[in-house]
């Protein structure tokens, strides 16, 4: 059996277990390739029936417009949890990067809707703290993750039991690599937002990363220029770097990624650079 078939079978098994054992799951969707694959897997899991749970986007307001357009077209009934609204209500203070603010918006939305499980498209190969997380990652009633006390996960028997107020984050594509995700996109002919493919864009360079010129980032004297770039990962415009590339066909993008010597997040995510334990710290307080 091809390893993609094996990975798909596992992911569908996980998704069905959550639907069966938890009361109110939600699928977190960002419009990025991982959540697109996740949504596709979820739809496959319940075919020919409907998805038995809603899809939610924690929207920072700093997204690439192409991604929002894609989201609205593919998931017209998406629930939007808005960081801007959290700011307006005084739940959080605005900041140049809204990445960390998502945690409050996410936890508030989970509490408001009473979700007891949230699917995410995180993968273990993305980052060191994620490499240690269980498929079912238990969060207490403050949304906190305690890496020292993760539940044992044996075979494919999942224990998603939670108390009122608690929830579990579930990562069905934990064992998929970046390349697996791309190859699956190709095999299943999934559509992705156009920014994943090479296009001309006005950008500027800062701290070794290439950022898009946008209303959300101050140029601060840096000069902008036009370049052919594509995005390897999709976060906010304020913290996602572009990769210089001419690859505008899926096969070419995959070939470039297979040959690359920099990790996906290392190349393009400024939010991970703050400290060595950046992801772990964010997860401890409730981040994805």
């Amino acid at each position, binding site marked *: *059996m091809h*390893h993609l*078939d*094996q*990975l*798909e*079978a*596992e992911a*569908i*098994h996980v998704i*069905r*277990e959550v*639907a*069966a054992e938890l009361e109110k799951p939600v699928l977190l969707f960002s419009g990025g390739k991982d959540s697109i694959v996740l949504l596709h897997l979820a739809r496959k*899991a*319940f*075919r*020919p*029936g*409907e998805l038995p749970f809603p899809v939610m986007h924690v929207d920072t307001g700093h997204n690439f417009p192409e991604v929002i357009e894609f989201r609205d077209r593919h998931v017209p009934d998406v629930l939007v949890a808005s960081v801007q609204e959290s700011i307006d209500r005084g739940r959080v203070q605005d900041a140049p990067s809204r990445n960390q603010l998502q945690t409050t918006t996410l936890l508030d939305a989970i509490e408001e809707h009473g979700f007891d499980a949230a699917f995410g498209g995180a993968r*273990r*190969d993305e*980052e*060191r*703290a*994620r*490499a*240690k997380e*269980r498929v079912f990652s238990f969060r207490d009633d403050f949304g906190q993750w305690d*890496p*020292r006390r*993760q*539940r*044992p*996960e*044996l*075979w*494919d*028997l999942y*224990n998603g*039991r*939670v*108390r009122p107020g608690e929830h579990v984050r579930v990562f069905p594509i*934990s*064992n998929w*690599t970046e*390349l697996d995700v791309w190859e699956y996109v190709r095999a299943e002919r999934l559509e992705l937002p156009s920014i994943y493919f090479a296009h001309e864009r006005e950008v500027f360079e800062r701290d070794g990363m290439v950022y898009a010129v946008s209303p959300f980032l101050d140029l601060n004297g840096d000069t902008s220029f036009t370049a052919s770039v594509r995005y390897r990962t999709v976060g906010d415009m304020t913290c996602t770097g572009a990769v210089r590339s001419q690859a505008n066909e899926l096969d070419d993008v995959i070939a470039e990624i297979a040959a*690359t*010597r*920099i*990790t996906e997040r*290392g*190349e393009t995510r400024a939010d991970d650079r703050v400290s*060595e*334990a950046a992801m*772990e*710290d964010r997860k401890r307080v409730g981040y994805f």
Partner: protein
Amino acid sequence: MLRVATAGSVDDGKSTLIGRLLHDSKSLMADELGTAADLARLTDGLRAEREQGITIDVAYRHFATPNRRFVLHDCPGHAQYTRNMATGASTADLALVLVDARRGMTEQSRRHLAIAALLAVPSVTVLVNKMDLVDYAEERFDVVAREVLDWSARLGLHGVGFIPVSALHGDNVVERSTAMPWYGGQSLLEHLESVPAANGAADGPARLPVQYVIRADGTRWYAGRLASGTLEIGDELLVLPAGTRTRVRAFEDGGDRAVAPRSIAVALADELDVGRGDLLARPAEAPEPVRALEATVCWLGDEPARPGARYLVKHTTRSVPARLDAIEHRLDVTTLADEPADRLELNEIGRVRLRLGSPLVPDPYEQVRSTGAFIVVDEATNETVGAGMVA
């Protein structure tokens, strides 16, 4: 795809080995190489681990060679994290156990081999590490290998492979070592690339535990992962534990057969009361429903297991109340002696008898791992407190 669990004592160099394997097979990305001079730090992903210099929990590392895709389950060696090691080893196709060439087997390596044997990891390979510190001497390798072989035989582990390595210097990890001309076997990576992939699942008896019922257009599709065997349209099936009969009418994907371990959805020829927790199997090879279990259990809970205590047992997709009737004996992992026990503490292994509030339909773990395994859950704390294997 091959899943490899690594186990070894705290000082046996397990993390160094993984770092070396990834480094020499060029899997490490440039930005990862830059952040740590010490190869071992590459897999210690949690802040506490990096500070203490040990592995606390399982880290999953993915890499690939042109020949095969791998997932490494880097498991903790410390006795207090045995429950995490059990997690990492339960889904492994191969267990790599490290033994220090100078010290030979320790209590920890005995325990790890015992856990690998208990969990029936299909393949076990022992790496005799730090050969550089014993002058790459063949005699020392032989002594250690024989010690481990004796222990493995007592565990019922057969076909155990041995490779002399130096994780620190790279000998026999990816490339064959020039320092050990007396060794004619494969390097670790060569071995990992050639070990047969353990997908015996498709060859076993047909087992479909129903996970979820999908209702669409007046049809009921029974969704689940084929835990074992194959199913074809027209196959006669028993719905267990009830024992009612039916046939496979259709597969949701439009195909005419399904093979383990695929996730599928199947429609049946008859309108029956089938739901989550039921098991579909062929009449000729169907397992018996039981109301009691004899099993070997590895205790993972902080509170000890005591006779008379009540738990929840989850087996495939079915959860039933259960009472621990008796602890028949505890297995001493370092001597393999059976001792009487009035309780099982965290990390202990014992043979138990459980009385079930509702029937289960298991196979012996040795025959079909997916339908012979179960977990024990403490309803009061929601914690998973035991890993069980049906005798």
